[in-house]
């Protein structure tokens, strides 16, 4: 192993360490009124708490289910087990098996029946067990769920949320580390979001459930366990807003989900080398909130888009094209993309070389700076 790949290995290991680490990267902009407390997610108490993303989503689901009895959860193994990632742990005990449905093992069936339940006035929240298992439901999502509102001339809405644990860094087997978000962002009628922090996850899942449009909710599974500060009193921003989470002056870097953590690590390393990166958390992949991004690019003149997904026909491609159209005279360099390779996700032993690392981001930053 070369020195460079050893370094990359070290950095990526740190990024993917599943032991709980404090993640304050995306803490809310508002100042916490009280010190963060460690509280079990099931407490249902408001205030500022330190939670993992998984438990923040649990708490958000609980809030949504308490607020509206039409909200129900559907998925495989989400009842007594609490889901393979334990995100629904304890919810069937509290809400019963007619609101937390352990479904038959059939993704098209889950989404198709969720559509019927939505027609009946329910607000189903579907859990797809792993990213790579969403494709049996692809037809129901793209040809049915996405189109019911327009087919009904607006007389029927589809308040269905599809939660998808996604992405790599967990060393798992085939079909368990995919990043399929672009397929759904490409489909009119769907909304697609991905939180990067426990705080955003807590609020965004509730906002997604409150939306009357179908929302694909991509949960970066490598970020399920690191803990962060969650302000359960203040959301901070709307569901489809992007935001600058670290200010800088030389190059803008943008990403979503787990990639935001990688970008922040890259910004730390770059700062030590005298390069100032501004980090934008996309949060919403459809629609994309270009305001903060264009504003940033107008100041830095350089943009690197990073993503775990394949680069070809990707969210990053869309951003590169749009920024080139809208900020052409601000750009000092072409918009560069950092992506996984256009191959199937390789055996997990190779994932650190496959997935974009902080160093891969910095390599693109260097190229952007060289123009």
């Amino acid at each position, binding site marked *: 192993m070369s020195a460079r790949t050893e370094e990359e290995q070290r950095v990526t290991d740190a990024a993917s360490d599943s032991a709980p680490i404090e993640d304050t990267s995306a803490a809310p902009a508002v100042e916490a009124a009280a010190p963060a407390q460690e509280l079990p997610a099931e407490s249902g108490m408001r205030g500022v708490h330190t939670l993992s993303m998984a438990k923040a989503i649990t708490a958000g689901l609980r809030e949504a289910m308490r607020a509206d009895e039409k909200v*129900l959860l559907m998925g495989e193994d989400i009842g007594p087990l609490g889901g393979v990632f334990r995100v629904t742990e304890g919810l069937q005990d509290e809400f019963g098996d*007619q609101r937390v449905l352990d*479904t*038959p093992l*059939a993704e*098209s*069936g889950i*989404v*198709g*029946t*969720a*559509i*019927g*339940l*939505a*027609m*009946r*006035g*329910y607000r189903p929240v579907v859990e797809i067990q792993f990213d790579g298992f969403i494709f*049996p439901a692809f*037809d*129901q999502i793209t*040809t*049915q769920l996405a*189109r019911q*509102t*327009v*087919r*009904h*001339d*607006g*007389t*029927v*809405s589809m308040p269905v949320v599809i939660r998808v644990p996604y992405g790599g860094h967990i060393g798992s087997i085939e079909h368990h580390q995919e990043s399929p978000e672009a397929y759904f962002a490409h489909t*009119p*009628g769907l*909304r697609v979001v991905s939180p990067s922090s426990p705080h955003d996850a807590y609020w965004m899942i509730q906002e997604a459930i409150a*939306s*009357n*449009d179908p929302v694909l909710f991509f949960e970066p599974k490598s970020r399920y366990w690191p803990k962060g500060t969650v302000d359960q009193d203040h959301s901070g921003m709307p569901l489809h807003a992007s935001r600058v989470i670290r200010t800088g002056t030389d190059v803008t870097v943008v990403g979503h989900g787990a990639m935001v953590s990688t970008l922040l690590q890259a910004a730390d390393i770059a700062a030590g080398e005298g390069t100032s990166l501004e980090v934008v958390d996309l949060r919403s992949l459809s*629609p994309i*909130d270009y305001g903060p991004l264009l504003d940033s690019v107008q100041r830095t003149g350089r943009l690197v888009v990073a993503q775990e997904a394949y680069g070809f026909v990707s969210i990053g491609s869309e951003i590169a094209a749009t920024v080139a159209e809208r900020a052409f005279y601000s750009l000092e360099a072409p918009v560069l993309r950092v992506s996984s390779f256009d191959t199937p996700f390789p055996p997990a032993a190779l994932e650190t070389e496959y997935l974009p690392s902080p160093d891969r981001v910095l390599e693109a930053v260097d190229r952007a700076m060289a123009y």
Partner: protein
Amino acid sequence: MAARTRDFTAPTVQLLTPSGELRPTPEAEAYLPLVEALPDEMLEQFYRDMAISRRIDIAGANLQRQGQLALWVPSHGQEAAQVGSAHAARPQDHIFPSYREHIVGMIRGLDPVNILSLLRGATLGGWDPAENGNFHLYTLVLASQTLHATGYAMGVQFDGRVGTGDPESDTAVLVYYGDGSTSQGDASEALVFASSYQSPQVFFIQNNHWAISVPVSRQSRSPLSLRAGGFGMPGVRIDGNDVLVSYAVTRQSLEEARAGEGPSLIEALTYRMGAHTTADDPTKYRTDAEVAYWAERDPITRYRAWLESRGASAAFFDEVDAHAADVAADLRRRALGLTAPTREKIFAHVYTEPHPLMAEQSAWLDAYESGFEGGAA
């Protein structure tokens, strides 16, 4: 070792013979009281609706040939399966059609001009189910609607609208699909979910023997009704060209569903006398002899013979035929008056809430169109 059975047969439940005699098969005896309880007006309505369906088929096919519709989907031959089952539903029940059940929609109160609007390319949907007898939109991706119906029925059950004994409240769901659709995974997944949750619904398969050009023998080597048992629900095969048995068996099945006894499946054996759609040419894949066989089992001819044997007058049939012709002529007239939608329809209701791409692109299209001379409108 005992020989494994390869005997996959199911009796066909029939009340009315092809020649129009009320002579129940053994399995049909139990359903006879449901028919005997029908008032004469309802028996006449069955005939009227079948006659209207057949006349509309002619009007629809003509409109398509004249370039007024992109497509027409005929029901010729399947009138009894559709009319009998539709009349078995109560007002609060919900119907999920495939895309061939025009007369079912009309029985539920839908103006068929809305269907023509869909087939003319003026809308993707055409009606609000809540305002049209709970008759849901047509679904063109085969068998997708079986899952929507199942989810809807699960919701009915979660709402407590099953098994209360209140005939005005207890609700069932009736979903139509065809023999071709039974091969889709969604059709099987719907049976799994319905059985698991004991949802109040009836799966109504119109086995018209042809999925465009592929015979039902390619979809299934055994009667489709037998599939129900494998999923843990009752299944029955009926003569789908017998409007009385279609009504009675569907009525019984829906009542059981409303009472909380769970889902069931009906396979109605019928025949698509015409083309799959006006884009099809059935002479390329089936024989005249087969069509002649089914012509002898025509649902309207046999029912008329039975009504005549009960004393229906020639004046009644003349009046119905005139009425059906009027309905078809009126539909044709109004179809020709359908106007094309305006371009706002491209963007309207893609989302329920504001969306930047919809706003940007509709504004761009307006500006683009208005850039042409006289194009501002």
